[in-house]
């Protein structure tokens, strides 16, 4: 039997054609990403100046001013949302990883999946009726709560998936040393999965940083500084929305700048997540 | 019959080993039989032919030894398989010695030639020979059938052969003293008696090994005890 032949040439060609189309598809998939980045950067850079970061918005009609309060507001909202959403999410993830086979576990998992599918605007309305109406005011607290609810299922599922990836042999090793079960879960299983979970959490945070719809009903907006958590609070996404649909040229420019800042924030979160993981892995 | 090894090749190797050792046993038995027959009938030609058989025995010894080593290296046998291989290994030595004894007997036959004297002593040697020959035969049978009882029984008969030899030796000495011209013949007869006694001893060894192989019980050097138990 000879080792070469027509069949071989045909196969080689097919192989190459397939590889080429994969590369092409990848390029097509990457085009929107780079397109957006470029466009936002190009349009946004014009609006970036010191004022943007330090000044409050000017009254309607006037040019100039900045988005200092929106930037701070976003940071406040995302920060509080993380505090409220991450611990329950991680704990629920641990529960699912340990007891996920039981019926209760399946119910919990199903609920988390459904929750992650609920449109963010619905979550916003929910928090609106629960908190805003009851407290009779828009507030950063309500906004953070809405974001936390959105973040929760992602954190839960990430934690669960990553814990499951940790080999059972490590748990057995710990148990074999006479370590009690819960300590084995926390100090061995969780610790091993920690880098991956950290990445998952950061991605969840990055995602909610850009949510606009829920904030419309909860944190609303504010032209001035919000002193307490119980006041309407400005945030970058809402501010972009408000400025973009306005008729003012100046505001459009500021909206682009805000978009650039938001995208940069998301990028920074993503990249730091990767760096953190790599450092952790290198240390090992 | 017992089960087969999961690896059939192993079974084949052990079967081949068994065939070869049985073949060697059969040839050695034949040599002894012929040697005794040649003595009884003063058949010099038969003696010569029998001496020539020893070559085959030697070749078989080399082959079987090599096979045993290969099985040990390849299979790391345990329990009954191990006992079988080890005993086969040792059987070969005893069988080869018996073959050599057969040759020695034939050489004495050649030396004696066609002369017929010392009838009584000669008859005694023939009787002794037949017992020893039977012992060898039974020991080999016991090996084939893995029959420990038969083997024990062979071990008992060794005493008989020893008794025969104990009787023969003084008789020959007496004959030699009465008629010095018989010395040459008498010493040859005495040698024959000695060889036969040693054949019986080797047959006993073979039987003891069969007992170990079957029972896992080492009865060597305890023959008296073993007889007493039974």
């Amino acid at each position, binding site marked *: 039997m000879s080792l070469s032949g027509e069949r071989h040439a045909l196969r080689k060609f097919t192989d190459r054609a397939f590889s080429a189309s994969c590369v092409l598809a990848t390029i097509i998939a990457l085009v929107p990403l780079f397109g957006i980045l470029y466009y936002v950067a190009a349009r946004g850079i014009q609006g970036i100046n010191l004022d943007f970061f330090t000044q409050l918005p000017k009254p309607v009609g006037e040019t100039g001013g900045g988005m200092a309060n929106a930037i701070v507001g976003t940071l406040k909202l995302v920060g509080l949302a993380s505090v409220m959403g991450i611990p329950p999410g991680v704990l629920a993830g641990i529960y699912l990883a340990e007891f996920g*086979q039981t019926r209760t576990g399946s119910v919990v998992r199903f609920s988390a999946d459904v929750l992650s599918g609920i449109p963010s605007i619905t979550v916003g309305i929910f928090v609106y009726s629960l908190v805003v109406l009851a407290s009779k005011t828009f507030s950063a607290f309500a906004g953070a709560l809405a974001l936390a609810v959105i973040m929760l299922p992602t954190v839960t599922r990430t934690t669960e998936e990553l814990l499951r990836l940790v*080999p059972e*042999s*490590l748990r*057995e*090793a*710990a*148990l*074999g*040393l*006479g*370590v*009690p*079960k819960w*300590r*084995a879960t926390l*100090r*061995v299983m969780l*610790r*091993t999965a*920690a880098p991956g979970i950290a990445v998952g959490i950061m991605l969840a945070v990055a995602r909610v940083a850009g949510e606009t719809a829920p904030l419309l009903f909860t944190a609303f907006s504010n032209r001035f500084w919000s002193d307490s958590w119980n006041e309407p609070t400005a945030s970058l996404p809402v501010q972009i929305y408000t400025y973009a649909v306005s008729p003012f040229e100046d505001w459009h420019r500021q909206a682009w700048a805000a978009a650039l800042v938001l995208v940069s924030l998301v990028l920074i979160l993503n990249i730091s997540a990767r760096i953190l993981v790599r450092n952790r892995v290198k240390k*090992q | *019959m*017992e*089960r*087969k*090894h*999961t*690896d059939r090749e*192993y079974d084949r190797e052990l079967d081949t080993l068994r065939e070869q050792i049985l073949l060697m046993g059969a040839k050695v038995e034949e040599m002894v039989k012929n040697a005794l027959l040649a003595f009884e009938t003063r058949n010099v030609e038969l003696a010569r032919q029998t001496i020539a058989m020893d070559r085959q025995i030697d070749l078989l010894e080399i082959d079987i030894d090599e096979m045993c080593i290969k099985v040990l290296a390849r299979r*790391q*046998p*345990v*329990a*009954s*398989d*191990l*006992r*079988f291989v080890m005993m086969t290994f040792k059987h070969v030595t005893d069988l080869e010695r018996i073959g050599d004894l057969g040759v020695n007997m034939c050489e004495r036959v050649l030396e004696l030639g066609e002369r017929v004297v010392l009838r009584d002593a000669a008859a005694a040697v023939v009787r002794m020979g037949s017992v020893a020959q039977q012992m060898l035969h039974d020991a080999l049978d016991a090996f084939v059938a*893995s029959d*420990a009882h038969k083997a024990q029984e062979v071990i008992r008969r060794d005493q008989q052969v020893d008794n025969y030899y104990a009787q023969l030796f003084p008789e020959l000495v007496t004959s030699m003293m009465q008629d010095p011209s018989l010395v040459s013949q008498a010493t040859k007869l005495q040698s024959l008696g000695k060889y036969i006694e040693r054949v019986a001893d080797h047959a006993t060894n073979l039987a003891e090994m069969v007992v170990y*192989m*079957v*029972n*896992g*019980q080492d009865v060597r050097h305890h023959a008296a005890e073993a007889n007493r138990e039974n």
Partner: protein
Amino acid sequence: MSLSLEPPDAPVLAVSRGAAEGKSSPSASEGRSPSTSEIALNTKANTKMRAENLSAYFGKSQVLKGIALPILEKKVTAIIGPSGCGKSTFIRCLNRMHEVVPNAHVSGEVTLDGLNVYGRDIDPVRLRRRVGMVFQKPNPFPTMSIRDNVLAGLRLNGIRVNDAESRVERALHQVALWDEVKDGLDRAGTSLSGGQQQRLCIARSLAMEPEVILMDEPCSALDPIATARVEELIHELRADYTIVIVTHNMQQAARVANYTAFFYLGEVVEFGKTDAIFTHPKQRRTEDYITGRFG
């Protein structure tokens, strides 16, 4: 070749009922396994652990059926048998790891120095500090360095010791790993080769100063040289620790163990000195298994 089953004179086991039949019975001894009181041993060693009428279940499925077996102090006992015979389940019953699996439970007794470890007020966690375990696949903790791995048992249990460094050194010396790693104790536990990792896991167990070490097929994932090193280690550890080793490699049992138990379908078919088992076993099934006549 048929097999006679008359008891040899080698000092092993007093015969249990039904074991000494005449020549021809191919399925020599049927019926229940002997209880440990029937296994009289001609030996000066004490019994460190003992299983008495031990049965183990996964849900409704019974995996061990009334096991009775002594584990002698400072001796190596090997458990051999075909897949699914219950040998891993058995040693996991010795340190109560079996019940960690959901729906698994146990009946009967396992005693350690005479005390039933399945008693009501016995803490399995404390038991496992006296009865350590080494697993089939080496499993050093990936987030910890070599030093931390050795001390893991102590650290994870919140046990503070003054002489941590010397403990690490002692444990690593015991497993003949010290010279190989002494310059890199901060390297990750997983940066070592398979054989070294397994020895590290043994060191980790030793650092807890157990009395009994259970080994569940410790060499199956290792190459022959690493295996030989671990076996050498077992020889050395024998002087100070009681060892129980499960292995599917019969030659390994023959090499390292003082006593061997042959398990089949959840029962002990035969137990005795290793040399006797491998030269003239008393039970037909044992003979068939070790000579490769199974299946």
